[in-house]
C-alpha cells in the first residue's frame, strides 16, 4: 500500500465510532447486517485497479481526502425550495423526497397523498416504524459479499427511501428521489440506501436524481435495491449531475420475478469520478429488462458504467444500450457482463456500447463479457468508438448550419438511440433538455 494516503478516510474507524447511534442499532438483524458489511469492506478494502472489476476505475481521489460523515458537520447550507432542481414537470402533485447529504429533508420534500397500497417514506423512519417489514429485503437483494462499496454502504447507511407498491397498485405519476450534495463547506461522505418493493402486478416510475450544488469535494456512495414481483413493472430513471469535484459510486440491484419488467435508464453528466453499477437478476421465467444509459463527459471527468445481467430462468430477456460522448481528456468505461446460467434456456441478451470521442485525448475502455451455460440462447454484444462523422458535419455546414450547431445536432442524433428508450414523454423531454444544456444548445 502507498503510505502517502494519510489523508484517506478511515471508514472502519467511522463505523466503530458511529455503530451505536446508527438507525436500528437496537435491532439484532440490522446490526448483524451492518457487521457483515464492515467485515466485507475490511476484507477487500477500497477497490483498486488490481481487482478485475475495478480495472479501469481508480479510486485515488478517495484516498486523498478525509471525508467527514455528513452528520458531523454544521447544518448544511439551507437550500431554498426555489433552488431545488427537479426532473418532474412542475405541477401540484409532485411527489418528491429530498435527501440532503444523504438525510431526509422534510422541508424540501413533498410526498403528498399516495394511492391505496403505496407507501413512500425515509429509510430511518421505516426502520423505526416497521423494522420487521424491511428485514426480509434489506441487504438480501443487494447482497454485499464481494462488493466492498456496497458493503460500506450497508455498514454505514443512515437514511434513504423505502418505496412499496402493493399488489396491483399503480403509481402512474413518477416519484422523484432527489439526492442533494455539495451543501457543506468541507468534504463529507454519505451512504444513502433505497429499497423499492413492487408487489405482483403493480407499476411505478422512480426517478433518482443526484445533484451537486457546489464545487466542493464530497463522496456519495449510494445503493438501491429493487424487487419487482410477478407481472409488475418498474421504470427507473437516474440522472447523475453531481458537483464537479464529487465522487459518485452507485449500485442498483434488481431482482425480477416471473413476467416482471424493469426498464432502467441512467444519464451521467456530473462528478469528477463516477461509477454507475447495475446488477439485474432475472429470477423468474419470462422476466425482462432494459438497462440503458448515456454519459456526457468533459474536462478530466471519469465515468464508469458497469452492468451484470444474470439470466437464471428460461425465456428471460434483456437489452442494453449505452452511449457515451467524451470530450477533452475525459474517460469512459463500459463493462457489461451477461451470464446465462444453466437451465436459463431460450433467453435473449443483447448489449451495445457506443462512444463518440470529441477529442484526441478522450478515451473509452469497453469490456463486454458473455458467459453462457444454457441452450438455445440468443446473445450478442457490440462495442464501437469513433469520431464525429466529418462528411455529415460538412453536409450540414454546406446547408448553412454553423459548425458548433452542426456538431450538437450530430451528437444529439447519436444519443437519441439510447434516450428514445425512455418511454415516458415528460421524462424523455427532461432528459433531452439536460443534454441540450450540456451541449450549450438548451
Amino acid at each position, binding site marked *: 500500500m502507498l503510505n502517502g494516503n494519510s489523508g484517506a478516510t478511515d471508514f472502519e474507524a467511522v463505523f466503530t465510532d458511529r455503530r451505536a447511534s446508527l438507525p436500528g442499532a437496537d435491532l439484532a438483524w440490522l446490526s448483524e447486517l451492518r457487521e457483515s458489511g464492515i467485515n466485507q469492506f475490511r476484507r477487500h478494502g477500497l477497490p483498486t485497479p488490481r481487482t478485475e472489476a475495478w480495472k479501469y476505475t481508480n479510486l485515488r481521489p478517495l484516498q486523498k481526502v478525509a471525508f467527514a460523515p455528513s452528520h458531523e458537520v454544521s447544518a448544511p447550507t439551507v437550500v431554498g425550495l426555489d433552488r431545488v432542481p427537479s426532473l418532474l414537470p412542475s405541477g401540484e402533485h409532485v411527489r418528491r423526497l429530498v435527501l440532503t447529504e444523504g438525510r431526509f429533508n422534510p422541508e424540501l420534500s413533498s410526498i403528498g397523498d399516495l394511492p391505496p397500497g403505496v407507501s413512500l417514506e425515509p429509510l430511518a423512519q421505516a426502520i423505526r416504524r416497521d423494522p420487521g417489514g424491511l428485514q426480509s429485503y434489506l441487504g438480501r437483494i443487494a447482497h454485499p459479499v464481494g462488493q466492498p462499496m456496497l458493503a460500506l454502504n450497508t455498514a454505514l447507511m443512515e437514511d434513504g427511501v423505502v418505496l412499496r407498491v402493493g399488489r396491483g397498485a399503480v403509481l402512474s405519476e413518477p416519484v422523484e428521489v432527489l439526492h442533494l450534495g455539495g451543501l457543506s463547506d468541507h468534504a463529507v461522505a454519505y451512504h444513502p440506501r433505497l429499497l423499492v418493493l413492487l408487489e405482483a402486478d403493480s407499476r411505478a416510475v422512480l426517478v433518482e436524481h443526484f445533484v451537486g450544488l457546489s464545487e466542493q469535494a464530497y463522496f456519495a456512495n449510494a445503493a438501491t435495491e429493487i424487487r419487482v414481483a410477478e407481472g409488475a413493472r418498474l421504470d427507473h430513471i437516474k440522472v447523475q449531475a453531481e458537483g464537479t469535484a464529487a465522487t459518485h459510486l452507485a449500485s442498483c440491484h434488481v431482482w425480477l420475478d416471473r413476467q416482471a419488467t424493469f426498464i432502467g435508464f441512467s444519464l451521467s453528466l456530473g462528478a469528477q469520478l463516477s461509477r454507475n453499477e447495475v446488477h439485474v437478476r432475472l429470477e423468474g421465467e419470462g422476466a425482462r429488462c432494459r438497462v440503458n444509459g448515456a454519459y456526457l463527459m468533459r474536462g478530466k471527468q471519469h465515468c464508469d458504467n458497469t452492468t451484470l445481467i444474470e439470466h437464471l430462468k428460461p425465456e428471460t430477456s434483456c437489452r442494453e444500450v449505452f452511449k457515451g460522448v467524451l470530450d477533452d481528456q475525459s474517460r469512459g468505461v463500459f463493462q457489461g457482463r451477461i451470464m446465462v446460467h444453466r437451465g436459463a434456456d431460450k433467453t435473449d441478451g443483447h448489449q451495445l456500447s457506443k462512444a463518440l470521442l470529441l477529442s484526441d485525448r478522450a478515451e473509452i475502455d469497453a469490456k463486454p463479457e458473455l458467459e453462457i451455460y444454457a441452450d438455445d440462447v440468443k446473445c450478442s454484444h457490440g462495442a464501437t468508438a469513433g469520431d464525429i462523422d466529418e462528411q455529415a458535419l*460538412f453536409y*450540414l455546414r454546406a446547408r*448553412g*448550419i454553423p*459548425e458548433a450547431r452542426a456538431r450538437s*445536432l450530430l451528437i444529439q*442524433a447519436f444519443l437519441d438511440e439510447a434516450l428514445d428508450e425512455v418511454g415516458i414523454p415528460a421524462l424523455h423531454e427532461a432528459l433531452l433538455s439536460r443534454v441540450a444544456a450540456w451541449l450549450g444548445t438548451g
Partner: protein
Amino acid sequence: MLEITNLHATVDGKAILKGIDLTIQPGEMHAIMGPNGSGKSTLAYILSGRDGYEVTEGEVRYEGRDLLVMAPEERAAEGLFLAFQYPVEIPGVPNTTFLKEALNAGRKHRGEGPLDAMQFLKLIRQKTQELGMTDEMLKRAVNVGFSGGEKKRNEILQMAVLEPKLAVLDETDSGLDIDALKTVADGVNALRGPDRSMLVITHYQRLLNYIVPDKVHVLAQGRIARTGGPELAEELEAKGYAEFTTAAA
C-alpha cells in the same frame, strides 16, 4: 456572380485543377461536362468549402468577395448551394429538423427572424408536393434508406427551400428515371430568375433539353478545354471526349 480565375488545386499533393477560368453572370445557367475524374466534383467541393483540397494558385470571387476564405456555412448562408453528387446520410437527424435548421440558419444570417413551426410546415408541404415527394420522406432521417433517386430529389427539395443565389448541381440527373428528371428540371427552372445563377455538372445532354444552358464547358484534365452553346452538348453526346483527353495528354 461567380468569377473563377486561374484556379489550381491539389488533393493529397496530386494536381487536379490546373488553371480553371470561368465567369458566371447573374441569371446565367452554365453546364459543365467532362470525362470521369476530370475534376468536376473537385471544383464543386472547392466552391462549397470542403476540407482536403489545397488551392495552390488563382482565386474565386463570389459577388465580388473572396469566396475561398469563407467557412462553408457562411457561403451557404450567402446563397451558395451545392447539390451533392453523393448526398450524405445522417442517421438520427430527421429531414424536417435538418431543413428547418438550415433555413433558419440562413434567415438568421440575413437578419431575419426564424420561421415558426406552422409557417415552416406550410412551406415544406408545398415544396414537397411540387417535387412529388411524400411527407414520410420528411420524417425519416436525412437520406437514410433513401433510394438513389430519392436522395437526388431531396437535394432539390433543399435547394427549393433554401432558394440559393448560385446553385451548383453535381450530377443531380444521374440515376433519375425520366419522370424524376422532369420533376428535378422543373424544380430547377422554377428557381431561375434574373438574379440567380446555376452551374450544372452533368454527363447527359438529356437534362439540358429541359434546362437549357447559356453556356456549356468541357472540363478535361483539370482545365476548361472548350466552351460553347447548347449545341456543344449535342456534339459531345455524338463524339465523346476523345478529342480532349488525347489532345491535352
